[in-house]
């Protein structure tokens, strides 16, 4: 009698949707390194051991300048963290790393040790999308992981629709485009057509290292190295793939549903 079984099961389990953002975010595993922090001032003169170990060429060391790490390209393998003799690159354990502007992911210079978290949309767009955002998802050379962890936001634990955010089956119904993948040449036209088919005003969200900058496929002749080469991007969410919490935090931040003035590493609180 599955009807009675399921009712009994539901009563036993209660509400399985997480308390976040009103309550604390779900605990991340101890080996999840979170966002990186780059303190270029700690770099020894002429040291560039982190540069060749980075699989996605996210790190450069221009002559006479501190190390520069592009968190957009980063796949969070932590090879640089392990190899740095000065402790200049460290893991913060912070799940928050969504930004509005590409340059806010460039770390290393004084005052730019950490990501500059995303500000909310402007007032006009917030009035339109703040409590109801319909997204069209396009995977363009994605490996399935960013797609899976975006999909997860629709399950009972995360329940994305409680924020008025839903994924729709047509670009005509969409307010925004959520892109995953490095944008393979073979998907360029389909991505452009999807964008063109959406009514204005519209926003674009790039999820994952591939969609931001090509990820592991940066520089491949078949890759367009990210969504920004085709459409203007309003929100960048780093990761390989980003944890669902990172994606959700980014979306809520964009919609002004979190207090953006809170300092890094403090728990985000719901704005009333």
């Amino acid at each position, binding site marked *: 009698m599955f009807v009675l079984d399921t009712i009994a099961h539901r009563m036993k389990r209660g509400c399985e949707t997480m308390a976040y953002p009103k309550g604390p975010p779900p605990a991340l595993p101890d080996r*999840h390194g979170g966002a990186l922090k780059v303190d270029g001032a700690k770099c020894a003169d002429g040291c560039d051991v982190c540069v060749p170990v980075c699989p996605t060429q996210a790190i450069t060391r221009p002559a006479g300048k501190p190390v520069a790490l592009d968190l957009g390209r980063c796949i969070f393998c932590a090879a640089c963290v392990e190899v740095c003799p000065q402790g200049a690159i460290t893991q913060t354990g912070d799940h928050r790393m969504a930004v509005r502007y590409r340059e806010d992911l460039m770390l290393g210079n004084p005052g730019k040790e950490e990501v500059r978290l995303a500000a909310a949309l402007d007032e006009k767009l917030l009035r339109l999308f703040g409590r109801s955002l319909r997204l069209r998802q396009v*995977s363009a050379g994605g490996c399935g992981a960013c797609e899976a962890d975006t999909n997860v936001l629709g399950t009972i634990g995360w329940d994305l629709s409680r924020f008025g955010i839903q*994924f729709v089956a047509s670009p005509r119904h969409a307010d925004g485009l959520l892109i995953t993948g490095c944008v393979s040449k073979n998907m*360029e036209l389909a991505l452009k057509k999807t964008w063109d088919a959406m009514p204005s005003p519209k926003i674009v969200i790039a999820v994952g290292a591939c969609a931001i900058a090509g990820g592991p496929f940066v520089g491949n002749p078949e890759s367009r190295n990210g969504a920004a080469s085709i459409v203007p991007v309003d929100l960048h969410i780093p990761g390989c793939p980003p944890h669902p919490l990172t994606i959700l935090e980014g979306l809520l931040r964009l919609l002004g549903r979190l207090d953006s003035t809170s300092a890094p590493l403090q728990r985000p609180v719901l704005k009333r």
Partner: protein
Amino acid sequence: MSASTPFALLGNATGIPWEQVPAWPAAEFVQATAKELSRGARLCAWFGVPEGPGACLVAVLAFDADNTLAVGRSSPFSGGYPALTVTHPQAHLFEREVWEQQGLKPEGHPWLKPVRRTNGNGNAPANGEFFRVEGREVHEVAVGPVHAGIIEPGHFRFQCAGEEVLHLEISLGYQHRGVEEALAGGPHRATMSQMETAAGDTTIAHATAHAMVMEALAGTEAPLRAQWLRAIALELERLANHTGDMGALANDVAFLPTASACGKIRGDFLNLTALICGNRFGRGLVRPGGCKHDLESERTVQLVEHLNAALADVEQAVAWFWDAASLRARFENVGTVFPAQAAEIGLVGPAARACGLVRDVRFDHPAGWHRFAQAPVAVWPSGDVFARAKVRSLELQRSGQYLREQLAAPADGDLRTELPSPAPGMFAAALVEGWRGEVCHVALSDDAGRFRRYKIIDPSFHNWTGLALALRGAAISDFPICNKSFNLSYCGVDL
């Protein structure tokens, strides 16, 4: 059977000097391969290796009953050769790929068109010609590349008479990122992360196959503890994906209790992988020469506790699924692939086992930890959506039991060894039973020990044809459940 083959035998995850791989003139090589396939061998890989102005063909065969692989090649040539597909349809996509990559034309191939070639100007893949059924009653339905959900892109072209699907042609290539091309001259520093994202939901299987190929080229293997940990991670990957598939199947027939429960439990399994390595998909765990993160005893205790809870939850959710007569009836006799068809087109993984084929790399070609510990092969005979769901739910039980047993008996020792550089002129092949089926990586090193050729075959490469056959004579409205019952990878094929 394999004892009398003229092909060179090699075990799973081992290497053989390239010069010891027997070579025939092209036409004779095709004949020799056809002979082996006719007496029960299976085509794991068929690809070209550029040599001089032309290329030579290479076949990697599996003799499942004899637990051995076999390899042979043609002498280098250019131009055409008699197609293997004519007698053995399991070669059809391989031969299209060889034609696209090396220009060797399989003469007599019934449907020769590109697999994933770029059009040159940033348009759709150049595979735009479709088989058409003519007639006043016939209509055509085109779906994709972008689908109505959060899913990878691909194009489906249905030829229908009313509701009935007469023919389905599946055109992929949209996800092509140039993975194999980038491996030439490798391994490079991006290689490991590209292997982990070849098919991102199969990270552990692809990473393990790559690591085993690297170890075989170097003439060594990973420490036992790493092999143990890889086997653990492989089953966690299977549990997460099978759970997700059971939920997705339930969702497509509006059976919400199982759908919503499985959505959450899938995440619980992903979190177990994250407990080991910090990443829900297992990125950064498997490395050539071993594993990067250890599963210490305190961590194992925590893992077992969460694992038991998730297994109990999924058992309950799947029990609702099978208890509902309405749901069983919806899946029975829908999307049937007959056992003879399955063998003919070379299905692998749960899709093959759901047609009664006893075919599982963990059992047939044990390498790594599977030489010491195996799970029974889960088989169901009916070949329909029901069978594919049934095999998954059986595998959920068996993977769970396997994990409980293995976690209680860890291997000791080092986690990683320093890998010597690959020997020059070596050929190595590795098969891993990923959650979709056989993941096959093949590498050939050059004189400097770099990759002269690297070939990746995701199980989806074998299985997409199975979905097309499952739809024959089915109602087009049954496409979603047929599709979910296979749940194949697009990027794994497109690479």
